[in-house]
């Protein structure tokens, strides 16, 4: 996918693309990284077709739905991508991955990252951050999940009772909050 051959400047190792976030920050990223975001890739290719991108890095791609803080995180995640996804073979490996996923902040941060990854059509990132969020609520009680997301239970007490009875066995062996 690299277009280094078209790059007029041989000293630069790869082409750069400039992304502009919702808060008007500019990010200059390597093409290889930017191309992981399918939305950017699509935009870039359309531009190329229109022959506008012939001047390479001069194109600025606007990302009106992504905040700079979020984009910075996504880019840094992209850079260490290779060892990330794939299902872990053993318990130890899984623990390391969990730790790695934990670094990506609070639930609010993760939800931001998920929204952004979704907007950018960045599949690996979406899976990774979804898993990171899932780690937080996996095997937790309903009360914990509500508190975690700040959701108010809107069931009538008897309705809730009914669900709990119906799935009583699903409520056994829940981790401590």
């Amino acid at each position, binding site marked *: 996918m690299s277009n280094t051959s078209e790059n007029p400047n041989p000293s630069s190792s790869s082409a750069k693309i400039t992304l502009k976030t919702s808060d008007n*920050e500019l990010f200059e990223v390597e093409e290889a990284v930017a191309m992981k975001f399918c939305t950017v890739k699509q935009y870039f290719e359309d531009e190329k077709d229109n022959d506008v991108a012939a001047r390479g890095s001069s194109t600025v791609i606007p990302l009106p739905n992504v905040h700079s803080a979020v984009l*910075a995180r996504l*880019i840094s995640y992209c850079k260490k991508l290779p060892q990330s996804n794939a*299902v872990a073979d053993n318990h130890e490996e899984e623990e390391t991955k969990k730790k790695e996923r934990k670094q990506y902040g609070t639930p609010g941060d993760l939800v931001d990252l998920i929204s952004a990854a979704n907007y950018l059509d960045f599949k690996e990132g*979406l899976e990774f951050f979804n898993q990171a969020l899932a780690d937080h609520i996996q095997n937790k009680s309903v009360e914990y999940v509500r508190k975690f997301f700040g*959701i108010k*239970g*809107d069931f009538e007490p008897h309705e809730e009772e009914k*669900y709990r009875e119906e799935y009583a066995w699903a409520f056994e062996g829940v981790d401590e909050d």
Partner: protein
Amino acid sequence: MAIEPITNLKRRKEDRTWTQSSKPSYEFINNLSDSLLFEILYPLPWLSVLRCKSVSKRWNSLISNPYFVKSFIHHRRQQFGMHYLEPSFTLLLQYTYDHKDPCVTTRYKVVRICSPIQRNQIEMEIFSSETGEWCSSVVSSPRGLNYFNYNTIDVGVVACNTMLHWVDVDERDKMIKGFVGFDPFNDAQQCCYIDPPTDLLRDEFISLGVFQGSLRIYQRPWLPIKACNFYVWELEDYINAGTWCLKHRVYFKDMVSDYPGLVKIAKGFHPPVDLLAFHPNDGELVFLQFRNYVVLCNMRTGVLKFAGQLQDMGKILLGNSNNFVTVQAKSAFVLRQPLFPTQLFPKPIPPPLLSRPYRSSSSSVGFCWKSEYRI
């Protein structure tokens, strides 16, 4: 190395600082679209997902959405691979009865068949009531076998002559390649392979059934141009490798009945007819499911008789609860027949349900449970 926007040096604003987001997380989660919330739920273990049904009304309705359930399973398969997630596709229970009290099971085997990982062998886990233990064994096959796929699971396992039989379907083109037979009692080292009838439509769905110790195939072609009839083959001369013999070819247009409703279904476009069971004593009779009716069909004369009705389109009430479980009444067994072996759930099912269905065997017809994930 922190990644910073190149404009950072020039500007100083009330930039929101990372991880000290002032908004509480619910604002984000409540603003997410349904499809994105689905994405968040996919990686969770399904017990967690079930619990999440009682988080709120919105979550409850999302998790109950059939689209979510389908995608959830699909996601799992993609992530872990079909054979990793579902190494076994069915459990079989083998009974023998105590002579004094026919309701007491005295001896049985439970066989768990794992999807073949290596072409020429299958891993089995067999529980024997006599030893009270599970044993793993590797069974070799005279032919290369395919991974189980949807069609294998749909046809299920049928017991006949103390042998268990299931269908081998090509992984790539989904054509029926043949049938695998396995005897958990006498020859637990090797399975046998039976070629399909030469005139079988190998790209169409089939059902397996049994008539007096002979294996039978029922095929009702799905393609509308071929769907005007159904076929029944029987495996003869089983011991000497076997020969398939086309026993019946029945046209829906020739069917007659005192019940005009049944004829109407039979003569309608693409009649919704499935095999339930072959009659235990008369080779010309077959129990079919016409929508939610159980129909006794004479395959020679085409006469249809009304034999019963399934409640609520094949949904069956379990125990005293109000839970309906979606059951495909796909194969039934007549209790007068030797009752072994009987199929159990082919897929994991919520623990409390496991113990209940067998109560249904006190009725005249017991059903084989093709469970679906119902969350």
